[in-house]
């Protein structure tokens, strides 16, 4: 996955999208893309443009997520759903190894199966940023997680830039969107442009594999006009973010405000349900469970996602370190915005806004941070669609 300069920019008319999906399917074991399932847009297997949520708009607000079928012809007129790439590279539940026993003797066997190559269509810029953050966690700091590595290495990423950010989005503040730049290396980037009677995608390659893929697509010359249209659309998107977060001095603000009365106020509302940590594309905490056969002849170690909102997370003999919900919310937000910087050299939040949308009581990381920063806050952002 070498990163090369964007050598190629070309235009793919909307009718050519099926050719892209077909080519992805020819070269990869599975192709995932956005699909409506259980009233949410999720990463699912796709085989045709008909699978894509064409014209669908997603409405995001604190504690609220709704899909609406619109009239627009766009294939990617929505933003992120509850899924992120996290569950693809770091499965929510994974048996690591198992052990067979006979008497005192035992043999240990790895249980993680080899995975095939996975192409993903419709990866948002904040998702790429989150993947780069996860890379630092699982591959970049001392130990390496082989389960993450094998999944990560076999991704082919087709990014889609965001031209219509949601009310919960603040990637512009975090420097992770709405355009594709930086983040994890990607293979292709699409910008969906509608105008002048034309509907199609500006296509760029971000890797050798992406360039090879482009050679197989029914592309047209892009021309300066389209490049300009992209820039204008991205600039407009950056201005229409539903939320903002001021990252200036953020670490110090959080570290200096461990005793701020606002933590108590958030704790009064927080249910400690852990939704925010589950939907967050960078939260990486896990537990490892023991699973045993009834006759005791075998045992297995299974890694499952865990959350710092769970009381038992910090149990040590004699009691829990973080007993109060206040201390657990403080840990979560301080980790995301402050201590992550000390640990991995980057902020742990990419501004995707999922934790805002999927918090049942609408606790809002941007708003809570603004209170600590002593800034005036507005209660809610704009709604899309």
């Amino acid at each position, binding site marked *: 996955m070498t990163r090369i300069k964007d050598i190629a920019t070309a235009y793919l008319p909307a009718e050519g999208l099926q050719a892209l999906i077909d080519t992805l399917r020819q070269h990869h074991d599975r192709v995932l893309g956005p699909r409506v399932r259980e009233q949410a847009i999720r990463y699912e297997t796709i085989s045709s443009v008909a699978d894509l949520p064409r014209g669908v708009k997603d409405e995001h607000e604190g504690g609220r997520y709704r899909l609406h079928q619109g009239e627009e012809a766009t294939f990617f007129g929505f933003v992120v759903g509850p899924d992120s790439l996290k569950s693809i590279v770091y499965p929510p539940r994974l048996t690591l*190894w198992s052990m067979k*026993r006979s008497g005192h003797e035992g043999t240990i066997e790895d249980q993680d199966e080899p995975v*095939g190559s996975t192409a993903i269509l419709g990866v948002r810029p904040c998702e790429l940023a989150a993947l780069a953050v996860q890379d630092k966690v*699982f591959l970049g700091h001392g130990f390496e997680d082989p389960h993450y590595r094998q999944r990560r290495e*076999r991704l082919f990423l087709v990014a889609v830039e965001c031209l219509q950010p949601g009310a919960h989005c603040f990637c512009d503040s975090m420097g992770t969107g709405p355009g594709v730049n930086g983040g994890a290396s990607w293979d292709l980037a699409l910008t969906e442009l509608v105008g002048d009677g034309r509907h199609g995608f500006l296509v760029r390659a971000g890797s050798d594999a992406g360039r090879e893929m482009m050679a197989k697509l029914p592309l047209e010359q892009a021309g300066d006009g389209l490049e300009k249209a992209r820039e204008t659309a991205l600039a407009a998107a950056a201005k229409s973010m539903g939320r903002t977060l001021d990252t200036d001095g953020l670490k110090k603000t959080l570290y200096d405000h*461990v005793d701020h009365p606002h933590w108590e106020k958030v704790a009064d509302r927080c249910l400690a349900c852990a939704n925010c940590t589950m939907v967050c594309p960078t939260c990486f*905490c896990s537990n*490892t469970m*023991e699973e045993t056969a009834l006759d005791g002849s075998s045992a297995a170690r299974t890694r499952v996602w865990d959350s710092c909102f769970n009381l038992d997370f910090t149990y040590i003999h004699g009691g829990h370190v973080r007993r109060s919900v206040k201390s657990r919310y403080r840990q979560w937000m301080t980790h995301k915005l402050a201590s992550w910087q000390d640990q991995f050299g980057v902020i742990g939040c990419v501004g995707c806004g999922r934790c805002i949308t999927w918090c049942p009581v609408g606790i809002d990381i941007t708003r809570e941070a603004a209170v600590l920063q002593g800034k005036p806050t507005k209660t809610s952002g704009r709604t899309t669609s």
Partner: protein
Amino acid sequence: MIAAKERTKAAAGAADPMRPELYRVQRSRRESSDTFTLELTPPRGYKPTPFQPGQFNMLYMPGVGECAISISGDPADDGVLLHTTRVVGTVTRALNGCKAGSRVGIRGPYGAPWPVAEAEGNDVVFVAGGIGLAPLRPAIFHVLAHRRQYGRIVLLYGARTPEDILFKPMLRKWSSRLDMDVYVTVDRAEAGWRGNVGVVTNLIKRAPFDRLNTTAFICGPEIMMHYTVLEILGRGVNEKGIYVSLERNMKCATGFCGHCQMGPFFVCKDGPVFRYDKVKRWMEIREL
């Protein structure tokens, strides 16, 4: 690259750091009513990574689970692995049930050690509370084995009752050395106890060490370490000469599970041994 359909070998192209080796229990030795020491040997053909004083392993009991236990043996002796454990719950109870021949999964060693090399030339003060003597023992072995590199060597050890005192034969041996000062105290005395009674911090005031050239290694319950540090600072020792070993819930020991976090630190890999001035700020925050 694009014809990526061929399959790679299993995940374990690289070894899984979560996968243990099955060690054999040679012997389980009782230290006190609730504490025991396991002597373990590695499986044939497996060459363990040498450990440094203060490091720990993850111990796995098949069918039960895993927990973090410090290595309590002599770092110069790579034949057997020693773990001294106090029974407090599920896994430690299962470990206590091990007999010669039992298998225990071991992965490690993990964590930042006691900086014994940096302490060379200084007086070294060890302050242990309860089971905290076990993680300190390898460092004591080390300084005694390199005796001429250090100034005075002092061990201050507090146990709940005389019955709870660990490593009694070894303490007797150390006490009889002319080049080491050993002071033991108990919270509650019993008939026949002629030693000190009271908390271990009481011993610090009269312990013989040169405040300007002292390194202190402290291990015990967090509250005990807190007061011990205050006493040692009170004697005029610099914060930078004081080290503590912290305990947090640990599920992985490799920096992945997130459980052991304390402010900016992962206790499993940045610690468990920390120089006091680096963790002071975080130790002072409640429920961090």
